[in-house]
């Protein structure tokens, strides 16, 4: 997934010399390919995220196409005001890349863990929010982010959870879910984004027939598409490695309560910080986001609908 990211960025940079990669002193080896191919299009803005995002706005005003990279615990969280006022307010074509979302930095504690970024980004007017779930979605999201020519936040979570799609995707339509597997109308549909997508597919395989929808595009979200999923299933289960407050689960709930009321189970990070140190898999267990814990909740929920 990370090599797909690097390849897409390098391709965009080669195709358009106005593409700039601006990093807040993060991405040590990740950008080797880009720096080799486009050395003059790489800017290390130092450990100074606020100035970095403001500068990206200035560069975009002159016609450059900045991709601004940071850890999602800092970018967008620390700079949400710069994204709001310097970039989104003027609808500037800046792509904000927040890496290490969720519990990627499991050993480093809550300062580097990111459960709030989607919620913050969703509330900024006109900011598109993307969250790829495998390498093919990564490539498609990078192309979409570039083609949108507006402000985009792209969340990058745990990158080694395997592939869900069989191959290259057709161009993404912003706001539209991707059907990963169909399911019967009398079972809940699973909607998942980012690293939880592979868990959703594994769950559907264990649980019995259930539709699985991937949600690489979180905002805007097609009201029609979500309503259609609600109509064609008994309930909706949303899975994300993000707070249950303000994330994809919240976004889906907001839509269905208005247009197609149905039960929604939001599986995500509950309202608390990580308590312990440990591996990524350990932290998923601590937060009840590992496959076994999720299956338990889904089984209990399914029994009630």
């Amino acid at each position, binding site marked *: 997934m990370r090599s797909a990211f690097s390849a897409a960025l390098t391709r965009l940079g080669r195709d358009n*010399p*106005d593409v700039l990669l601006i990093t807040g002193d993060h991405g040590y080896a990740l950008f080797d390919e880009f720096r080799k191919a486009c050395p003059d299009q790489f*800017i290390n*803005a*130092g450990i*100074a995220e*606020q*100035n*970095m*995002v*403001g*500068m*990206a*706005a*200035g*560069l*975009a*005003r*002159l*016609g*450059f196409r900045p991709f601004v990279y940071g850890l999602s615990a800092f970018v967008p969280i620390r700079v949400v*005001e*710069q994204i709001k*006022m*310097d970039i989104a*307010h*003027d*609808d*500037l*074509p800046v792509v904000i890349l927040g890496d290490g979302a969720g519990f990627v930095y499991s050993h480093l504690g809550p300062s580097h863990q990111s459960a709030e970024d989607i919620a913050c980004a969703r509330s900024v007017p006109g900011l598109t929010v993307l969250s790829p779930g495998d390498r093919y979605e990564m490539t498609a999201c990078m192309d979409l982010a570039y083609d949108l*020519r507006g402000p985009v936040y792209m969340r990058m979570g745990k990158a080694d959870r395997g592939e869900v799609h069989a191959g290259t995707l057709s161009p993404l339509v912003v706001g539209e879910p991707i059907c990963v597997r169909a399911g019967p109308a009398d079972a809940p549909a699973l909607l998942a984004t980012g690293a939880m997508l592979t868990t959703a597919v594994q769950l559907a395989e264990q649980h019995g027939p259930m539709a699985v929808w991937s949600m690489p595009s979180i905002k805007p979200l097609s009201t029609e598409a979500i309503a259609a999923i609600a109509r064609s299933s008994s309930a909706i289960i949303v899975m994300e490695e993000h707070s249950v407050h303000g994330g994809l689960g919240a976004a889906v709930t907001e839509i269905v309560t208005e247009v197609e009321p149905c039960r929604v189970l939001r599986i995500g990070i509950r309202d608390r910080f990580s308590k312990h140190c440990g591996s990524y898999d350990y932290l998923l267990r601590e937060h009840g986001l590992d496959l076994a814990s999720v299956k338990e909740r889904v089984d209990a929920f399914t029994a009630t609908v």
Partner: protein
Amino acid sequence: MSKGAHSGHRSIYDTNPLHLPFVPLCGPIRHFPRGSPLMTPSVSWPQNDAFDPRSLRETVLAMARAGNTGHVGCAFSIVEIMAVLYRSFVRYPGGDPRHPDRDYLVLSKGHGVMAQYACMRELGWLNDKEHIERYFGDGSDLMGLSDSRTPGLEVSSGSLGHGFSVGVGIAEGLRRRGTDQRVFAIVGDGELNEGPIWEGMLFASHNKLSNLMMIVDANGFQAMGRTDDVMELGSIRQKLESFGFETADVDGHDQGALETAIRTLIASNSPRPKALVAKTIKGKGVPFMEHDNQWHYRHLSAQDYEASIEALRAEVAL
């Protein structure tokens, strides 16, 4: 009421959509040699008698009265700085506030925006009927802080510490384009409390953005009181110098001195970014407003307005 719903009022956005600067500039990198004809001032540019500080302050008072607004003191401290920049330094080919080859006047201390509006009025970019007399009217265009959707204003800077970084990004972009365009960024001394300003200075210095000139409006006040009492800055010039800027001090109300100082900094061959520390007086021009921070907030009553105009005219007559 939405902007579009306001009947009979032609918005300045109608003819100047925000996205204009982006689309036409996406082509290949263009190079303008120093002294390119594109850079000569427009023939229609107002001549030396324009941007008279007394007239600019009267416009500010008229706006403040029309809108019943505060922030008069913040605008008055930068009147001469604005006048000199518009009269002699900031280049707008064809007099077009959105021309891609213009210099960028970035008002990072957005609270002084009425001084910039007053200059934009002299340029014909704003008019009395729609903008000055309707300031703060329902459905009107001009905000009480710098807003980049208004042609002529480059940044949205009500939140302090934003505009300077955007200006640094513009300067970096102009350097990459290889043009001789410049960025003038007006920063308040109170605004220097904000961290991103210093982040931006580090970047500008490291990347040798000699096309950037930071102008500090050192009026000695911020929202709650004197800068010395709130967050003592010591020597601003020494701090900027230590951050790698080529610096100068100047009396921010002496137009001749401002002109000389800016010209000298621009003429320098040093690769360093430039900074001018302009010592100013908050509320300058109306004696009862000078050094009195209540004019950061106080709304201008009809009586205040009359007294201010009278005091302003008497002051200039001396």
